[in-house]
């Protein structure tokens, strides 16, 4: 075990930051930024550690698995942590310009809690601890959505809260069944002791359904667009980029490690729902008249891609799904930020009137466009690499119908992204006074979008990191 437990620090630091922000509301913004930098450093440290020494296990309280709670960092959790760090830093920088003082007081502690919850979730190796982090995450996220105020945001937040609680409870019931079946909560131990039984199957159904609800997989996505679209821009960004991914991450962990099911039926069912999400989200996104709604439905579609890996089940497919997750996190954060800039500048986000705004915010539009490239899955971008891997997996497994879905989804994405981009080239007169957008907000969006593009050029490194600890069980898996 290495000298410095970077992973633990990545959890404690934002917690401490949250309390500091809470205690000193006037300095919330600088305190938050400092914490963000610290967390990024922790993630980098953990990355270095994992890359050097392989997967890490950390027994909290020194008790070890059956009794205590373990933290576990392998390639999968490391990448999640890192993408959270990058997006989180971007969101922090963006938020320092976005919120007025009054809102900032509430935003920063909640955001720090949320970040802490995310890090804790990605590092946890204990299914009950996962439940706690999930709740921490969910409550913080709901509170952040409600921060926007107004009927839309509050209704969205309410629905989101109910959905989140329902999902958590289903998950918790599953946890109960698993614990009473095997007497342990640690993922690795569960995997060892796993034996199929009706209780396990019920737990699997309950936990999957609960997590799917939280991940907003079609047809359980209904809560996502209103919540994500009505939240403040940085919150939309972190919800779409990170929060929905958290529950997917748990699902992935359970699926890969705990449930030793090769049952093709459930995989195909998930794949089918994913495919439906891709198409439905794309179609709905295309139909939207408001930019943030469009982006939110785009998230629904992109989440669908993640589930295409389940029926494929091969190493390459998992890698593709995870890569999509990473690049989508970056790209979608950038998109929501760009939309936030537009909203902030022009006072509205009606797509049809974007031509009044778009040309006056070239950086934001560029960010939107670059992020769009990744969303569409065009090269060179992280989205492309992900799509390539998924396509390859589909081709290799002979399940060519997923190829069609992937391609159709890409086309739909192109349609809705360019529906927006097109307005960048006409210049209409401004009808009202515009508000200046701070440069930090524009650059934060652009830099995140650029990182999403960059992911397409440096793929071997993240893919190599992903393999640490063999989260996908090596080449033969599936």
């Amino acid at each position, binding site marked *: 075990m290495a000298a410095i437990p970077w992973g633990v620090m990545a959890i404690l630091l934002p917690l401490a930051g949250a309390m500091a922000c809470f205690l000193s509301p006037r300095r919330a913004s600088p305190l938050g930024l400092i914490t963000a930098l610290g967390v990024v450093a922790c993630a980098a440290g953990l990355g270095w550690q994992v890359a050097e020494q392989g997967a890490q296990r950390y027994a909290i309280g020194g008790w070890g698995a059956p009794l205590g709670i373990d933290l576990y960092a392998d390639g999968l959790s490391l990448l999640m942590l890192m993408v959270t760090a990058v997006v989180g830093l971007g969101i922090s920088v963006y938020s320092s310009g976005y919120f007025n003082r009054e809102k900032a007081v509430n935003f920063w502690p909640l955001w720090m809690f949320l970040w802490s919850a995310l890090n804790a979730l990605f590092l946890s190796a204990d299914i009950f601890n996962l439940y706690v982090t999930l709740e921490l995450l969910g409550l913080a996220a709901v509170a952040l959505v409600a921060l926007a105020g107004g009927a839309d945001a509050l209704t969205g937040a309410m629905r989101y809260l109910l959905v989140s609680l329902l999902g958590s409870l289903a998950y918790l019931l599953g946890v109960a069944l698993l614990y009473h079946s095997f007497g342990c909560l640690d993922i690795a131990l569960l995997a060892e002791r796993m034996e199929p039984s009706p209780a396990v*199957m*019920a737990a699997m159904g*309950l936990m999957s359904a609960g997590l799917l609800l939280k991940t907003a997989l079609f047809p359980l996505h209904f809560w996502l667009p209103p919540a994500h679209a009505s939240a403040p821009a940085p919150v939309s960004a972190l919800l779409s980029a990170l929060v929905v991914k958290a529950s997917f991450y748990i699902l992935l962990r359970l699926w890969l490690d705990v449930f030793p099911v090769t049952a093709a039926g*459930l995989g195909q069912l998930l794949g089918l729902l994913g495919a439906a999400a891709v198409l439905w989200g794309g179609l709905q996104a295309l139909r939207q008249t408001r930019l943030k709604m469009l982006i939110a439905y785009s998230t629904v579609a992109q989440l669908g891609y993640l589930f295409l890996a389940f029926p494929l089940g091969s190493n390459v497919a998992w890698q593709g799904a995870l890569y999509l997750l990473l690049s989508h996190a970056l790209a979608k954060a950038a998109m929501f930020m760009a939309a936030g800039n537009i909203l902030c500048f022009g006072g509205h986000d009606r797509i049809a009137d974007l031509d009044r705004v778009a040309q006056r915010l070239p950086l934001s539009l560029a960010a939107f466009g670059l992020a769009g490239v990744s969303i569409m899955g065009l090269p060179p971008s992280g989205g492309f690499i992900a799509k390539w891997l998924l396509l390859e997996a589909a081709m290799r497994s002979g399940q060519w119908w997923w190829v069609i879905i992937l391609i159709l989804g890409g086309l739909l994405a192109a349609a809705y992204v360019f529906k927006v981009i097109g307005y960048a080239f006409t210049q209409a007169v401004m009808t009202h006074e515009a508000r200046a957008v701070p440069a930090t907000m524009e650059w934060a969006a652009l830099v995140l979008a650029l990182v999403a593009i960059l992911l397409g050029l440096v793929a071997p490194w993240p893919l190599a990191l992903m393999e640490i600890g063999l989260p996908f069980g090596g080449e033969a898996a599936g």
Partner: protein
Amino acid sequence: MGAFYHDPGIRAVNDVLSVILLLSVPGLPLLLAFPALRSRLSWPCHIALLPAVVLLAVPEVVSIEVPWLLLGTGLGIDAASRWLLAMSVVLWAAAATLLHAPTGQPADDCLTTCFLLTLVGSLGAILATDQVGFFAFSTLMGYGFYGLLVAGGDEAPRRAGRVYLGILILADLALFEALLIAAETIEDLGFEAVRHAVARSPSPGLYLSMVLVGYALKAGVWPLHFWLPLAFRSARPAVALLLGGVPIAIGLLGMVRWAPVGEINFPDIGLIIQGLGLAAMLYAVLAGLERAQLKLLPAYAAILATGLFAIALGTGLADPAAWNRYGDLAHVFIVSLGFGLAGLATAIRWLEARYHCPAMLARQADGSNPWFERWPGAVVRWAARMGFDTLPRLRASWLAEVGRLRQVRAWKRMLDGSERFLQRWTFAITLFLLLGMVVVAFVGASSWIG
């Protein structure tokens, strides 16, 4: 990757002078064709002829290979082409003088350029020693001549020009095909080599017919003569002077040089061609008498002469030995035809300037286009209908169908409705999915346990 090392750049030339000379015969007029380069010169068209004159003065047979030009071509002069060149120089000089006479109009820049380009084409074609070069120059000559016909003229020359242009394109197509067939047969595209090779190839018929049709079109041989009367009727004096010596002569020269006459024995085709030639002569006489226009006389004379030439050619095809014996006369014939037609044209101009001839006005006034002008128009109109109307209309109707589909609000409503349904039955759907999961899991489990 090394193919081009072996290609010689410019191969050693024994006589640098002949290279310069031969190249400058088409080269100088080509340069002068650029208005900017001749703007200071007072007699550009005459100056352009100087290299040709010098070349005529050189007594020996010279020829060069220019491997880097086009697909590797050659220029040269021998006894036969010397006569042609001499004829051309004389005619061109005369025409240049005529052209220069009414100078003073700045708009004639275009005309001068066309004149010089045609000059390049005709001299180059005479000097060319292989088919590609000949084809290139004769094409240039053709389009240049079209410019000469049309430039600065009114409706009548334009119509002549249009018809000539159509002929020209068709002829070039035919000749291009012939050229391809030749190139397919043999690598070296020198005239002699091609004639030999084609004659020995299994089916020289296609090549022969392409060559004959192509050059017959260019030379205005009956029944492919339609542009000739139009051109003679409307051309300005300088151009009328050139008609015999340039397009017709080059056309006939092409036939002589390209067709494997004297190498193959095609009595049937020969007979047909002879018949055509005879018919041409008959037609020329009849039509010339019937139309009775002074200005058209050279045209019918040309048809008559080319008919005669066709008879000779047919004889050559039917009886190679005869052609080999008397074939050289063809060049003499061409030269004299050029001079003769030029003389005739000049004479008629001169006569016309003296005596007014009302007959031609009456003929022109009836306005009915001959059939050969009508049907190309019809073809174009038909094609227009095909391309312009049918296809877009098909597309339009298809688009309308799609548009109707798009208009149907049902799609929109369906999308809206389902989304609202999903929102409304929020938790019920969750239940369904939960059940689905559990059931699938159970099924999976039972099959797995069992």
